[in-house]
């Protein structure tokens, strides 16, 4: 029995569900899209961004990736729920919240 989280779909039979509903891997939530909760979305103006990184730790959804050089990249809209904390803390007005057109 592999007991992979990815196989524990809502169709899983009782014989095959992981015992105790325990999961034997970390970070299986990574496949869950929460970006579709968003009504507004942050947009980064790269030309205004000074890479001060104040926006990174305030994100509740780990949606601001930081690369190996310590520079932030564009938003991860797969997770971003559009709370707007990042835009509010940006000292340079580099992040604007816009209506999310899906």
């Amino acid at each position: 029995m592999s007991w992979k989280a990815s196989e524990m779909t809502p169709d899983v039979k009782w014989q095959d569900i992981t015992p105790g509903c325990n999961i034997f891997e970390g970070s299986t939530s990574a496949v869950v899209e929460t970006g579709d909760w968003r009504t507004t979305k942050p947009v980064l103006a790269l030309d205004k961004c000074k890479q001060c990184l104040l926006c990174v730790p305030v994100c509740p959804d780990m949606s601001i990736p930081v690369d190996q050089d310590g520079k932030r990249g564009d938003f991860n809209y797969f997770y971003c729920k559009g709370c707007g904390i990042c835009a509010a803390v940006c000292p340079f007005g580099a992040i604007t919240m816009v209506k999310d057109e899906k």
Partner: protein
Amino acid sequence: MSSDTLKENVMREERLSGGHRMCAGCGSPIAIRTVLRQLEPGDHAVVTGATSCMEVSTFMYPYTAWKDSFIHNAFANAAATCSGVETAYKALKKSGKLDDTYKFITFGGDGGTYDIGFQSLSGAMERGHDMVYVCYDNEAYMNTGIQRSSSTPHFADTTTTPAGKVIPGKLQKKKDLTKIMVAHNVPYVAQTTFIGNFKDISEKAHKAIYTPGAAFLNIMAPCPRGWRYPTEKLMEVTKAAVETCVWPLYEVIEGKYTLNYMPKNKLPVAEYLKMQGRFAHMFKPGNEWMIEQVQQEVDKNWEYLLKSCGL
């Protein structure tokens, strides 16, 4: 580490994953990811979670948002559960069955910490397990729909202390849990929240994790829904809590108090209260006495803290 710049801090490994179902703008995942980022590379953690918003949102079967091992047991017993895990670690280490380094971190909301889990927390701290208990304090039972806890501030409007015609919100003052934890004589206790470059919270989390023995971290982690402020204002709210001395930043190492931030101009509490809908009734004409009373309480606590810090 304490010398980390913000850049170094955010380049550390993230151990909470996206895809969790906490509300947009929730303070609790910010607290969790910041604390877990302070684990040193190569060190593992077993995280314990009390039943809470955080727990049901981070481990809804089959999706765990925890990169490390995680155990949720019940509402009242996160600290006891963690002490069992930590003790098993000692037993397995002793028998030579384990060579990796693990750290033991518990997260609970104020309901699971100040109230129903208080006994279990007190027991675990007194026994001195090598663990960190982190309370993400959002000052009410948010998971069940914003009911008052012993951490709810004086006069706050919650669903079990509604601001009514006769009773104006919660009649009791907030329990000072941080001081109660200090009274357990554990080596490290600190109170913090999200401020600026996250230096305060990060340093405290690192100290709490790497101080041998039991440590307690109380993190104000606002709930935009329960506190009724727009989600984007989170960092303004925590800043106001600190600048008004409603939530001072301090730590207690081996019983010695240190104030970590002295506001240049201590702001009136109204500056903090007015941002949040849960205090809106205090600003109605005729209710000025409520704000005055809270101001007196905050002043008294602040003076006591300054004295404790030798200031």
